[in-house]
């Protein structure tokens, strides 16, 4: 049994009192490809950032080759031999592949004057890339390379740094099928050279195409580690999702009415969502599930007119509409509660009152009295906790801020609500209040599309669930069939059976 290359013991980390990792122990053997899986928010990124020296753990010990180490900066991690291949590749597009591989460490002729030895760079780069099994001209500019080729460059860079451990975060997310195959081959090459790889992914299929072992994180804890051969997919999904079906989801009466409020056909946008088709009835709540990068936010923003629509038709109450800007969307009764309320939903420096009336008071003169009355009504109805509606909305807590965003659309008499992560970053109490508001809206006849990463939330509220995967609708689940497992299976590219 080999001694582990990297060993994390009882690592814990919390952000502002909210635990992200609790007592996680994790190890990687030399020459091993170790997959790491978990839902959004399970703690994978935090764990990797601790390994990479970007964050430091609150408790626990890290050992490298058996020796205790304290990795306090990315540079230290690099010196130990830990290398990262991020989702956002850290390459300089205007430079060549070879230059990027040796970025910052160009071999020089004379130490003092730093004459760069270009031939040497390109020779060594070419050799590295060949070793990886995919020769490429190192003089090509990174800007001209495909995503797969760019990843190769990043991996080449890691090799040139004499990495012993390479961490890859969702490496196949931007790749085509062919490039994915090539990447897996490259990983095989790394393994043959004795380099270990930590492979983070959402695509369960890939776990069975290369890695030796798999570890599952859930809610900040490690719940399982096993050789891939001993972990069939159903077991994997069960570990990821964990909870038995809860009785806590009260069987809500669906308030769906027969009238069709919104219908979308063949909708494509921004090169990131393709051929989307679905319908929402009045009073119905349709959940939109999927993992990060599946395209939910892009879809909702495109429907709202905030981003380019490539193709497709949209019908409201059966009539075709052409929505090119948010102004059009609002006129047709649409509302969008964006995923990032601070960046997209609120004018932080402005008073609560302004934010609430922004979409509804559109005549020339400000009628302060009428606005104050409307604001007061909303504050009561939605129970927004604010000492003074003239106070800047930046001072409210997350939950109350989100209520202000909802109030804005209620005041605008919206009838179709597109909600994107409506309870992100909100404490439990406020969450419950917002769920109540959403249910009341539906009961009053509004059509609601609820995009969320929290499966609990979707199962609690939705009458139907659409699951997105890589920009398309992977499947639709009726309330009876919807469960965390079935949703997760569709979201990770499996089938609905």
């Amino acid at each position, binding site marked *: 049994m080999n001694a582990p290359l990297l060993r994390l013991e009882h690592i814990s980390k919390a952000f502002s009192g909210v635990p992200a990792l609790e007592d996680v122990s994790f190890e990687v053997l030399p020459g091993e490809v170790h997959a790491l899986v978990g839902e959004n928010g399970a703690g994978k990124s935090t764990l990797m950032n601790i390994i990479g020296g970007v964050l430091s753990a609150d408790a626990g010990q890290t050992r490298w080759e058996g020796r205790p180490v304290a990795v306090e900066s990315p540079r230290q991690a690099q010196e130990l031999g830990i290398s990262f291949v991020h989702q956002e590749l850290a390459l300089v597009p205007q430079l060549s592949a070879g230059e990027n591989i040796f970025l910052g460490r160009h071999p020089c002729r004379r130490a003092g004057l730093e004459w760069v030895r270009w031939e040497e760079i390109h020779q060594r780069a070419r050799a590295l890339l060949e070793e990886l099994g995919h020769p490429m001209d190192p003089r090509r500019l990174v800007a001209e390379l495909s995503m797969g080729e760019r990843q190769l460059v990043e991996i080449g860079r890691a090799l040139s740094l004499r990495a012993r451990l390479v961490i890859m975060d969702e490496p196949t997310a931007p790749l085509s099928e062919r490039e994915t195959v090539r990447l897996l081959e490259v990983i095989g090459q790394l393994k043959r050279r004795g380099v270990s790889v930590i492979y983070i992914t959402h695509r369960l299929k890939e776990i069975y195409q290369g890695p030796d072992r798999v570890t599952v994180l859930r809610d900040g804890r490690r719940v399982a580690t096993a050789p891939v051969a001993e972990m069939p997919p159903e077991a994997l999904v069960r570990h990821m999702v964990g909870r038995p079906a809860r009785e806590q989801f009260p069987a809500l009466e669906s308030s769906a009415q027969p009238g069709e409020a919104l219908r979308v056909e063949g909708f494509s946008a921004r090169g990131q969502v393709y051929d989307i088709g679905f319908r929402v009835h009045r009073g119905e709540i349709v959940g939109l599930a999927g993992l990060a990068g599946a395209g939910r936010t892009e879809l909702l923003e495109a429907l709202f007119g*905030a981003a380019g629509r490539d193709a497709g038709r949209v019908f409201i109450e059966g009539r075709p509409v052409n929505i090119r800007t948010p*102004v059009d969307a*609002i006129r047709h009764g649409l509302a969008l509660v964006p995923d990032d309320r601070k*960046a997209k939903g609120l004018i932080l420096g*402005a008073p609560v009152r302004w934010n609430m009336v922004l*979409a509804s008071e559109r005549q*020339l003169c400000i009628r302060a009295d009428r606005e104050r009355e409307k604001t007061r009504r909303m504050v009561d109805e939605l129970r927004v906790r604010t000492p003074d509606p003239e106070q800047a909305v930046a*001072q409210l807590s997350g939950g109350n801020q989100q209520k202000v965003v909802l109030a*804005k659309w209620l005041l605008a008499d919206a009838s179709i609500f597109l909600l994107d992560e409506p309870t992100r970053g909100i404490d439990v109490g406020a969450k419950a209040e917002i769920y109540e508001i959403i249910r009341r809206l539906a009961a009053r006849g509004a059509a609601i599309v609820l995009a969320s990463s929290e499966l609990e939330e979707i199962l609690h509220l939705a009458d139907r669930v659409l699951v997105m995967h890589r920009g398309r609708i992977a499947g639709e689940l009726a309330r009876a069939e919807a469960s965390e497992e079935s949703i997760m299976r569709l979201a990770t590219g499996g089938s609905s059976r």
Partner: protein
Amino acid sequence: MKTADRGFWARGVSEALRRFGPLAALLLMGLALSLLSEHFLTFDNLLNVFRQSAVNTLLALGQLLVIITAGIDLSVGSILGLCCVLAALLVKAGAPPGLAIAAALAAGAGLGTINGLLFTKLRLPHPFIPTLGMMNVARGLALVITGGFPVSELGGGFRYWGAGAVAGIPAPVIVVVCFCVLFHVFLTRTTLGRDIYAIGGNRQAALLSGIPVDRRLALVYGLSGFMSAAGAVVLAGRMNSGFPLAGVGAELDSIAAVIIGGASFFGGSGTVLGTLVGALIMGVLRNGLNLLNVSAYWQTVVIGVVIVAAVWVDVLRQRATEKSRAARR
């Protein structure tokens, strides 16, 4: 707290500066100048200050709107020059003063709107670019139309807005006060004004809340051009001539007035009163240093120092407010 042992006056001054910002600085400067020169605090001199600051204030009001949206208008000085010349030429050609003024205002608004449309329709990365282009185009046109010559002797009717007076109050002062009131009402009591703050505060959120951002931006730049033309009319009246090099450097003065007045360069904040105070601070500085026979070169140095100091004070003020807010939580 250390301020306790600094004495009553020191605390008063720092508290005043913190609360009232630029206005306190203006009063402080006025106080200092009145001690240094017996002429400063006379009625005539104060009228001089207002008169000399009038054109800059008018330009600064337009610039304020632009800066609130996190933009910048570099063309105001050149549009002023071109409209100055246009109005003067029309008057010399026999047009009634009212027509000349209306034509100049229309031209200014038109050029400003072109700036706005270039920025929004061509999706240029920053308003710096179209307004820089317009700065050169307008100045060039002014020189081409006049051949470099000033167009002088414009007659009493036209000159009224620059050189006339009502009951002893110079007409430019009245014009400035009227526009200040109008802009204040616009910014604080209309939804258009609120939209402008929203766009500056968070453009994406404003767009997603249904504000027609492109239309508002075109309006803002159009208004900036309009105010340049208004400044041109006052200046031509005051100078009794439309000279094509009028307003060279005026754009920087207008930006300085807005920034000294407390508006944030990143958009979303700024008030008419602040801008007025900013323009007066610059006017008082120049006037005071003139009275003290300090050369024009030193005046420029002092104004540069004041700009940096004003922004620094504002940064400190914001940090102090945040700290006290955090402490309260």
